[in-house]
């Protein structure tokens, strides 16, 4: 089932949480709503679910071409997984998952045996069949999350919506559950939207990522496109660490921190001040000058624990730079703190100050 929302706005009192947001999610797709807190991503998710009403002037909310904007959350057939799970604390795991089936009107309610069968099958799917008679407070965070997911799936939803699904878990469990959820999605192919503020999570899990900021959509695209071709300064800044320089666009060339480089795209703008963005791994570090334009810098600190080595550098012109490289490259360079190095930007992104 596809989801389409058109021109959705939402104001809480005087605070505009969403400005004219439109989004289409294809059938079977897994889409991430990514943004900092307060960017409106959870509000958008809750509006899709029907837990929140958009402003009256907003456009339709289409589930497979059918407008559900006026329908209550209970009749939209959405599976919603809450950030803090919202498990019914006085019910066992089994009862929690069975709830959605038990509250159906009598004529739509499956027979007792069928409910039991369905619930146990779901609990097997989330690998919790052994804990069916436990209460939520007897479970770990990851287990609670999986109960919440099984409960949402029990009503056979047409779409699955997850609000910060891994937000309250520690890093290791988060990583495991992330991969597990991706496999589950590939297995059941349910149209899914999840909210996250963690860019790694969005990049790893989603088919497409929607980056939000201050109630607006900054960019929609595959993780690859969003990461390598950010359309706005915000997206560039939000997706991973980045070095920012205040430079100038002059005569079709970009000047910053004592280097001059060609802009990534053919220049369309006139001469003006610009912001130049370089990712740490896009800095090429050389122990000697090799002829290409470079920034002369001194190594201030080396962080070598991890798959990559990170260097804090101070440029001749005073700016601080962060560079990153694989361990073997670092060993080949044979540099240490206070060494002088020559830094060449391999790839830059340029945004004018107007955005």
């Amino acid at each position, binding site marked *: 089932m596809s989801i389409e929302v058109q021109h959705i706005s939402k104001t809480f009192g005087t605070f505009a949480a969403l400005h004219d947001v439109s989004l289409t999610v294809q059938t079977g797709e897994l889409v991430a709503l990514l943004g900092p807190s307060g960017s409106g991503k959870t509000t958008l998710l809750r509006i899709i679910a*029907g837990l929140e009403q958009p402003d009256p002037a907003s456009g339709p909310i289409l589930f497979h071409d059918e407008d559900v904007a006026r329908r209550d959350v209970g009749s939209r057939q959405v599976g919603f997984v809450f950030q803090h799970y919202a498990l019914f604390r006085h019910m066992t795991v089994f009862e929690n998952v069975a709830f959605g089936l038990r509250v159906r009107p009598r004529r739509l309610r499956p027979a007792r045996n069928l409910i039991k069968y369905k619930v146990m099958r779901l609990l097997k799917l989330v690998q919790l069949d052994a804990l069916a008679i436990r209460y939520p407070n007897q479970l770990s965070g990851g287990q609670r999350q999986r109960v919440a997911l099984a409960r949402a799936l*029990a009503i056979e939803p047409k779409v699955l919506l997850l609000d910060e699904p891994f937000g309250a878990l520690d890093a290791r469990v988060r990583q495991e559950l992330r991969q597990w959820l991706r496999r589950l999605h590939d297995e059941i192919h349910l149209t899914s939207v999840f909210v996250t503020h963690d860019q790694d999570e969005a990049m790893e899990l989603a088919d497409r990522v929607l980056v939000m900021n201050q109630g607006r959509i900054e960019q929609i695209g595959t993780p690859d496109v969003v990461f390598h071709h950010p359309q706005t300064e915000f997206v560039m800044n939000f997706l991973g660490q980045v070095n920012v320089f205040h430079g100038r666009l002059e005569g079709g060339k970009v000047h910053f921190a004592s280097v001059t480089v060609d802009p990534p795209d053919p220049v369309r703008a006139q001469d003006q001040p610009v912001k130049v963005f370089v990712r740490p791994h896009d800095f090429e570090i050389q122990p000697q000058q090799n002829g290409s334009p470079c920034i002369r810098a001194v190594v201030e600190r080396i962080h070598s624990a991890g798959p990559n080595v990170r260097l804090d550098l101070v440029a001749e012109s005073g700016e601080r730079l962060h560079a990153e490289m694989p361990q073997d490259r670092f060993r080949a360079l044979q540099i240490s703190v206070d060494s002088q190095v020559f830094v060449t930007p391999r790839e830059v992104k340029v945004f004018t100050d107007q955005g």
Partner: protein
Amino acid sequence: MSTTVTRLPIVVPRGRPAPSEPRAVRWLLIGTAAAFLGLFLLLPLVTIFAQAFEKGTAAYFSALAHPDTLKAIRLTLLAALVCVPAGTLFGIAAAWAIAKFDFAGKNLLVTLVDLPLSVSPVVAGLLFVLLFGRFGVLGPWLEAHGVRIIFAVPGIFLATLFVTCPFVARELIPLMQAQGIEEEEAARALGAGGWQIFRRVTLPNIKWGLLYGVILCNARAMGEFGAVAVVSANVRGLTSTMTLHIDDLYNEDITAAFAVASLLALLGVVTLVAKSLVEWRVARQVAQAEAL
């Protein structure tokens, strides 16, 4: 049940006792507290029963079996039977609205719920006299239609209702606020209707707090004196509740007065025990709400 959930062992410190006051100071503090409790709580309680049984068990039971006493007991029970469910319904509705929804005038409602606790019961009684009494605002109209509220049983119900209505609400509001609305939202998303959400999700989560509120509400309904004294005129056998009857008997037959008082004292003891048991469960429910 398999035990995959590992719990941290509870570490009990051994050996050195916790640092504390000198022995003399400790005994002085404990002694003061014990003396106070004995003098102001235990001694009066014992006196009530001693006085009640002063002329023997037979006199005690014949005092209780007096028709006027039985009628007073019946009226008190009736008032509790009417007011406790009404106060409970009001309390649940008010707490549900205050804790789970946002609306204009919410603070005003919270203040109003607390009002009966800040107003003297005598003033509350007078308020009803001024409203429904013969010379009150609605008095002439009521009299013309043959309805009697003041100096009659309905007045007693009204006065009792006024002083008892905050108890359940006050108990439930903080509990329901601590529990938040996420579970209700989850139930709604799973297709449950309003009543199903209340009965299957909200009510089980608040049941101990609710019971606690009901116990307090009942104790107050049976023990109320001031407000009821003003509105009832205290006609023996007709509009006399237990508290009013005790006050009445005290001037003529002390043993009978203490016999009736012993029933209320007994109610107090039972309430205290029930309250402590329920309090312990409420604390657990709140702790659970905070842990999840």
